[in-house]
């Protein structure tokens, strides 16, 4: 259980750091303006395009990774333990 938490946490922090870095580069207007979630530039170059793609990838990596390790796998294990207990009681 603790291992699963650590894995989800590592995905959240590691992916989040990559996401935050790219967002600070490309989707931040200014310090006073919108930070991290502003509109991406109109005509990004090749590298910026790749970085924006990586930003999308890390977004979903974090969302799915955290969901899988913090919710999906524990729920699956609880269900399996419950069903096995049920079968053992019968």
């Amino acid at each position, binding site marked *: 259980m603790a291992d699963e938490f650590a894995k989800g946490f590592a995905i959240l922090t590691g992916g989040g*750091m990559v996401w*935050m*870095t790219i967002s*600070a*580069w490309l989707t931040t207007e200014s*310090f006073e303006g919108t930070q991290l979630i502003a509109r991406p530039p109109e005509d990004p170059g090749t590298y910026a395009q790749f970085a924006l793609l990586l930003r999308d990838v890390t977004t979903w990596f974090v969302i799915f990774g955290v969901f899988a390790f913090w919710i999906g796998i524990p729920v699956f294990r609880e269900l399996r333990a419950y069903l096995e207990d049920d079968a053992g009681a019968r």
Partner: protein
Amino acid sequence: MSGKRTDTDDSTEPRTDDISEPEGSEARRAVRTDGGSDTRSDGGIVPQDDQAPTWSERKQRTQGLSRLTYEYFERSRREDEDLRRASDYVERDVLAFPTWPHEMIRNLAITSFFIGAMFFLAAAVPPHLPGPANANSTPAVILPDWYLYWSFGLLKLTPLNPELALLGGEKLVSDRVYGVVANLVVVSIIAMVPFLNKGAARRPVEEPGWAALGVGGVVFAFTIAALAVKNLIAATFPIGNHELFDVTFLLPLVAAFLAYAVLKTMREGYMFELNRRYFRLRPPK
């Protein structure tokens, strides 16, 4: 054996099985679990370690779930001790890892990781450097750092400062002094908590009342901090200042009540799990 054990100990503690009579080498050989050879002639008695609770500590845990948890722990400890007494098990001499290299290598790895993260962030996402502050103009919003918002919020308790009819509608103390006194009251309450409850419970379910108090306190820390920035809250969320003031004091109560209800409900399931695990481990004879 240490001096803590008395003669009453042997009579009150439940005997586990026949291993409690370690006299005679046959009985000793029957329970030996460590694979060691029967070389010691004195039975290999190992003194009870200092982790075991004293008798005054035992007597304090007299009721409820903490008592049940404690009894399980105490029985398993007693069985371990009987096993040790009955066998020629010798405790290891090494109680920890040496500082070098074991601990240092691990610490260096962790330190390198965090220093690397700091260098990476400082290089990749450099912080914004604003222009020099103008000492001649007062900023529009004056606020302390965020971790002092709770204290700043306690200075805004003006509606709670009563206007006394005895004084002809005057207030006993000014609102500013009232806010400072409120800080003292809150800090005093927090300082008193360790003396009211020493925290013997390991889990919130064991002490739902105290856990609920803690939840209420944490929520109040957030709501009073929100009250400190009520002008920003009013600009961002559709909530008036009066409603925010009410929510500041009602939300902690609601949260504490909910936490108490949930933990009280969880208690039965927790005790059931505890019983089930225990009897799966040590089935009743």
